């Protein structure tokens, strides 16, 4: 299981015809308003649009500032650039690339002094296997492992005497090997001398499903998970 970090290739994309837009305002900084850290699927449009806001040096919203979005190969923005609205915001629909992994997107605006100000936003694209893992997490795991409650699903996290690890908790989960995760999912907490409150799923989930779940956990981990293995000499 390898997590791929696709770093944006330094914004080499030529500004398209959209930059014919004439900015009427200039800010000092661009910040993410909403739509970052989403978990989507490869090649697909994220459910929430990405919204960024341009602020001046006092932190007040700037209308009419030109914002351009860029990302690694395969990422699509609709629209790829535009002017901020009266509340200083610009919204774009993001389609992630065809490869599972983390995508670092950039929103950039020009200051009055023609200097670039940008913000990096990270999104996660699930491939087929991770998508299966995500669905299984939603069905079986999230009720205890996700401390957040939603209207449809009240979290059981607070009710448990021994707190489960949220799947994003890279500091702990990254230290566990795939074999250890397989053991604790398949045989329950006692398999690793942990709490019996974690039941075994080895008779409910198939081997493939457990693999998918681990692939998903590895992908959404924060900080990112780096698979151990041969380190190849770099030329």
């Amino acid at each position, binding site marked *: 299981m390898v997590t791929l970090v696709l770093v944006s290739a330094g914004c080499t994309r030529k500004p398209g015809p959209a930059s014919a837009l004439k900015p009427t305002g200039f800010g000092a900084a661009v910040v993410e308003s909403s739509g970052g850290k989403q978990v989507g699927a490869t090649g697909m449009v994220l459910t929430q649009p990405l919204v960024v806001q341009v602020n001046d040096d006092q932190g007040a919203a700037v209308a009419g500032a030109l914002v351009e979005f860029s990302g690694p190969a395969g990422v699509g923005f609709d629209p790829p650039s535009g002017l901020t609205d009266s509340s200083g915001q610009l919204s774009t629909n993001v389609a992630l690339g065809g490869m599972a992994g983390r995508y670092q997107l950039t929103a950039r605006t020009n200051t009055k002094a023609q200097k670039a100000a940008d913000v990096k936003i990270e999104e996660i694209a699930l491939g087929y296997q991770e998508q299966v893992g995500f669905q299984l997490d939603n069905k079986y795991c999230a009720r205890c492992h996700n401390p957040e409650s939603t209207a449809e*699903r009240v979290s059981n996290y607070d009710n448990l005497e021994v707190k489960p690890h949220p799947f994003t908790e890279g500091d702990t989960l990254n230290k566990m090997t795939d074999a250890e995760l397989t053991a604790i999912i398949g045989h329950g907490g006692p398999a690793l001398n942990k709490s019996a409150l974690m039941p075994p799923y080895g008779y409910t989930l198939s081997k493939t499903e457990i693999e998918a779940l681990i692939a998903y956990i590895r992908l959404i981990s924060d900080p990112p998970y780096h698979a151990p293995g041969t380190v190849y000499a770099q030329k």
Partner: protein
Amino acid sequence: MRLQSMKNALSSLWQTLFGHPVRAFGVVSLLLLISLAIAPAKNHFSEWRHYQKQYLALIQTRGDAVTLQRHFHEHDGIQQIWLPQLGVVDRCTTCHVGLKEASLADVSTQPFRRHPVIPHTLDQFGCVMCHRGQGPATTVEEAHSSTLAWEQPILPARYVQSSCGQCHRAPLTGTPQLNLGRNLLGRYGCVHCHTTKLPDGRAIQPTDDPPSLEHIADKTTREWIYAWLKDPQSYAVTATMPNFKLSDPDARDVSAFLIANSTPLAGDTAPDLNNQKAPDPTAGASLYGESFCSSCHAVQNAAGNVVGGDVGPELTRVGNKVKPEWLRAWLRNPRVYDAGTAMPHYRLTDPQVSLLTVFLRNKTDSDLLANVHLDTPTPEQIAHGKLLVTEYGCASCHEINGIKKPDNFAPELTRIGSKPLTQIIFLPGMTHAIPDYIAAKIRQPRSFGAALKMPQFSLAPAQVDALTTALLALTDRAHDLPMALTVPSKPPSNYQPAGKAGKLMDDMACFTCHTINGRGGDLAPDLTWEGSSVQRPWLEAFLKNPGTLRPALIRRMPRFNLSDDDAKELTDYIMTVYQTPEFDRDSMPASGYPPAQVEQGKQLFYSKYACQSCHIVDTKADKGYIGPTLTQVGSRLNAAWIYHWLKDPQAMRSGTIEPNRNMSDEDARALTAFLMTQKGSSKQEAKK
């Protein structure tokens, strides 16, 4: 003069090359050699060799270079996957050399990426089955793009789940987008107008249940119809009714016709029997809550979020829509107005009906109808309205007096995923590919011509992609595959319970939430084996007054105010008919287990199996809020059911999230003994 000099030059060239027989032989041999070398040279400098060389350079520096090189040299040259049964001849692996190499997971440059993990192997399915494109081609252009001879370009990654749908007809865990798209085809009523047959010959059925307009004047006003027609989403953001972009006069005439065409229906209006005193508005809100109306109906809150279920229509501005006399009759018994409605008959008392009516009538938006002023219509306007209703195919979805549902109103979509590009008119600047066409058509149908009838749907970008995905799955290949190669979906069930109980179940719309024998919704537990599961007295009491089993759930079973006779009738039916053939429900006793066994079960519950992480037995100590509360499980469930459930929960109710613990018979028996002692406190019983 000039001609002469050219002639001289040519003849001297001829002399030089062929003047002497030996020289001539040499020249001819050379020409022959060059011409013979063209084909090998073309082969040598071909694109695919270029990629294979690049690949070898890429793997050279890697730790496992030797293994990778060996894999490569086992079959270099042009590669081919040939699957005669599927009609697949794919040479994609000639350039995409690293598809099967797990160690290339960090390579992000094409064509050398490893293929992501999927449940199928390349050798069994090839590439074009999922990715489209031209399999036999050996150049990038021909394989990926649409050319004169081949119109099928590569399918963009965002629609790739459509390919799964060619063979898999039932929902798959790994294809949420395809599942959503198939759902939306019914939910947004696409298939009312567009006949869409599945490969097994069944037509996709709409699930949006558009209301009949035969008695519309009893229900609402002409002003509301006008505002709704002009912009359905301004009344309810979740409305699935599309916008027909009617002009003001057209909307005026359609609303005039619908009102004039409506016939009264006996019993669909009711006078206010509680006129004397103004009901307390907070009491209305709590009745709305107690009746769990929000399990099915949503309301938009002040922050703009839509909160509630999506089974019934959104009620944010319902006060602008319905007439009070109609609403009273509807709440009293919705089946009078619409026999097939998903809404249960609540059997509310007259004061309760009044309370809810006042509460719902207060849900208004003063802006909605503020600018709607309609004069009494002329007969010409009404006639014009009828013409418009016929032209726009309103009767495809709604029942309208005197207008028949048109047949084949819109193009059939049965094989839309393989529609020949020559039959499609693309817009200027559009990519000439079927996914782009379908997506553009769904996004903005009238961009293809202002006179087109297809209305504007209100869909998020992800929904458009999902619908496109579902439609792209309807290919020639999907329809022509031998049945043996497909994974069929379960045929729809038309199960109907019999007799008086069956009528009661229809009346309470049990199937809106519960599934029985394959028919019904998924909001609540499957009841197919309910009779083997529960004890009779508990069921009868529960039907009369459903208590809380899962405290963490927001959507719960409402109280239907059943009479004693009806509750008994229904209980008898469920206990007799809904039994599993797997075991005899009376095979284990309800009580009398040895105390030692009960104690052993308690130990197992709290230590070995740690059931308290999800269930509550002792309300003071346990906090598990995932599964049902078990404080009175001994009076609710049958011992044999508990035992078999513990042994294999998924066998008792497929899809349940309780994990199978691979429990020994002895452990399962001890736990059953312990759980059967949980009869609930006598105080709670007394309260009921």
